[in-house]
């Protein structure tokens, strides 16, 4: 899991205007960039668009992104969609410098608060602000974009969190989105430590062969985690019976064969793996673990930027 780090971000200049249009926003970005020669060197990574409702704290998003350090997108656009029928477009722009080793690169923040009919046409607001020839990642923090949203077509990758977006019932919608535009799901990324621990438990050659003898799989945990883990394991063990149990806060995976039982589970600060086999001493291993933070998940999403075929298969089996 990538780790977010705090790096120095120096603000070159800011601009804001209420009841504006996109042209002044673009003008301000250009002006601010040129106002400081050092700021003209643009980072060349990606454009990140974060979309959310009134609950979105814009500065919180910027702070999160600024903490990404080397994974800091070249331009971050945060759109806060407000309730109300009357047209509103308030904009705030910041141009910053960030040190990356011996280099100093320019990064931009754009915050838009919108209300009225334009909220159904966010793509028209955002597309002129995206940087050419860089991937566009749309981060849907609270909910999934509607299927008809053109923001999906604008995105090279969608970052979602199925848990925040409504839970297990939203997985079919995530699958539909994923068929259109590669989706990176925080809910899936959160499972990586557990999946890695399980995989690592079968590294020894004498244990590796047990994977061919798995007959039953049981997963526990919150509903989205359970569903994704079950989908993944169904794909890994097509002949096994895969079951889900309970709605526990902690997660666990148990693989059972005729003469063995391997279990990995999360505890508040640890990941524990336990193996019992007929005729063998029980084996137990514990490693430190803490739930990934939003910063870490976002960094992981932006660093990889690839369509994960394992997620695709797991999702298709949920």
């Amino acid at each position, binding site marked *: 899991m990538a780790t977010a780090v705090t790096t120095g971000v120096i603000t070159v200049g800011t601009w804001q205007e209420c009841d504006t*249009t996109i042209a002044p926003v673009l003008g301000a970005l250009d002006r601010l*960039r040129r106002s400081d020669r050092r700021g003209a060197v*643009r980072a*060349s990574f990606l454009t990140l668009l974060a979309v959310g409702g009134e609950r979105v704290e814009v500065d919180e998003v910027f702070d999160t992104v600024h903490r990404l350090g080397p994974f800091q997108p070249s331009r971050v656009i945060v759109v806060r969609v407000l309730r109300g029928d009357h047209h509103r477009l308030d904009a705030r722009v910041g141009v910053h410098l960030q040190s990356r080793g011996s280099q100093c690169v320019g990064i931009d923040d754009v915050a838009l608060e919108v209300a009225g009919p*334009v909220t159904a046409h966010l793509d028209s607001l955002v597309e*002129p602000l995206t940087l050419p*020839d*860089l991937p566009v990642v749309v981060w849907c923090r609270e909910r999934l974009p509607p299927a008809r949203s053109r923001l999906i077509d604008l995105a090279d990758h969608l970052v979602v969190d199925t848990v925040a977006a409504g839970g297990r019932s939203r997985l079919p919608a995530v699958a539909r989105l994923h068929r259109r535009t590669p989706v990176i799901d925080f809910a899936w990324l959160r499972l990586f430590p557990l999946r890695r621990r399980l995989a690592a438990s079968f590294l020894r050659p004498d244990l590796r062969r047990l994977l061919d003898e798995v007959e039953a799989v049981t997963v526990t945990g919150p509903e989205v985690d359970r569903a994704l883990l079950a989908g993944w394991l169904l794909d890994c063990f097509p002949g096994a019976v895969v079951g889900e149990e309970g709605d526990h806060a902690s997660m666990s995976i148990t693989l059972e064969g005729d003469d063995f039982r391997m279990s990995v589970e999360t505890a508040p600060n640890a990941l524990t793996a336990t193996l019992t086999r007929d005729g063998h001493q029980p084996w137990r291993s514990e490693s430190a673990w803490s739930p990934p933070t939003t910063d870490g998940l976002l960094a992981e999403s932006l660093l*990889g930027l690839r369509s994960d075929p394992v997620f695709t298969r797991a999702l298709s089996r949920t």
Partner: protein
Amino acid sequence: MTDSHPLFEGLGVGRAASPAAIVIFGASGDLTRRKLMPALQTLMARDQLRAGTSIVGVGRSDLGDEGFRRRMAESVRSAGGDGPVDERAWSALEGGFRYVSGGYDDPATYKRLAEVVEDLDRERGTGGNRLYYLSTPPAVFADVVGHLGTVGLHRPAPGGTFARVVIEKPFGHDLASARALDRDLHEVLDEDQLYRIDHYLGKETVQNVLALRFANSIFEPVWDRRYVDSVQITVAEAEGVGHRAGFYEDAGALRDIMQNHLLQVLALTAMEPPVSMSPKGIRDEKVKALGAVDVLAPSEVAAEVVRGQYRAGWVGGAKVPGYLDEEGVAADSRTETYLAMRLRIDNWRWAGVPFYLRTGKCLPRRVTEVALQFSGVPHLPFAPTQAAQLSPNALVLRIQPDEGITLRFGAKVPGQTFDVRTVSMDFSYGAAFAEEAPEAYERLLLDALLGDPTLFIRTDEVEQAWRVVQPLLDAWTEDRTPPAGYDAGTWGPPQADRLLERNGHRWRRP
């Protein structure tokens, strides 16, 4: 090509033009207010115009010298964002404003004009130098030039002075009318007095296409059919037709952009290396490139060209009406606001390489770029999953906005696995040069005053460009099919996507 003398050497003044009477026909129009006057003031502020330079407006409005001066002062102020006018430059120009009121078809207008410019020669030392700028409807070009000829204003005075005429596009509305216009103009003027302006050529980044290609050894060797898979040239406008419906209804995207801006950029992209950067050297090669464009047969137009017309939609967060609902547009208009076409250039360098050209109004963003997409490697020694994020190499010349160059190539993603992803290497004008690039009109006005026609369009270039687009006009005259609709704020009708998909290509998202 500088109009200077040895005493200026080392003073950092650069190119500067001798005092002249700059006569603007259509002086009360939008172009004069938004572009010409601010450009002239900037040139004066940079000492690229000499004291004595005078500006004579000619138009139907009854402005008077003082009214014209006030209007020009206002235009300079508004162009500077209400910032301070350069007082030194303004005071140098201030006494040189004159206005001649009258019709373009009235001989008396030209007699008064002759008196005014002769007075300026005496009062302000313009020395018989004349630059006539025709910022008028094209229909009066020939009339104006004819009348200039009648009163002898077209002739340079003895003693090394000049009389030049700048005309704005469109140069004709089809091949036949372009030829007719040229005949009329050449009855009065020599070709070397005619400066056909396409402001695109005044943009620094358009000129940089020449620098990139011919000042570097690394690009030219791959700039041909052996390495280039396809070329895309995009001129996208976010704005709708606005208040230009009267002009646009007759012009459409073909005459407004494709026949001039787009084909000029195409010529610079496709031309062979010139022997020298002289006006003749460059323009000869551009003509050859345009001459090598394979003209579509009328039967090919439907398959190789897509024309569209915008419907209501959203652009830049604002709702815009459909073209048919714009003021001044006919309810059954078939004028194209979008145009995409595939061209072939039949020469040694480009045979088999498709050139995809597109332009349109109400597209998602304003952008002009040339993108060369290169062929793939002969063998990709990576697993499909390793190279899933790899797209073809591309060299993108961004002409506006955010002027610069981007090279796209594959690089290993840092980490223990060997994944390859496309990354961008970016050159930005704003980052590399401290100097602000001059506005296109500043460059072109100074060139015209100095007698440098390199960035102006020669008569044979105009004719070649019309030769390329004439089959489209012919085909559309016969074809009553309305243009394909596209929602404002999208990248054009789906038919344009299919135009490329047939060859396994897709439009870039610029």
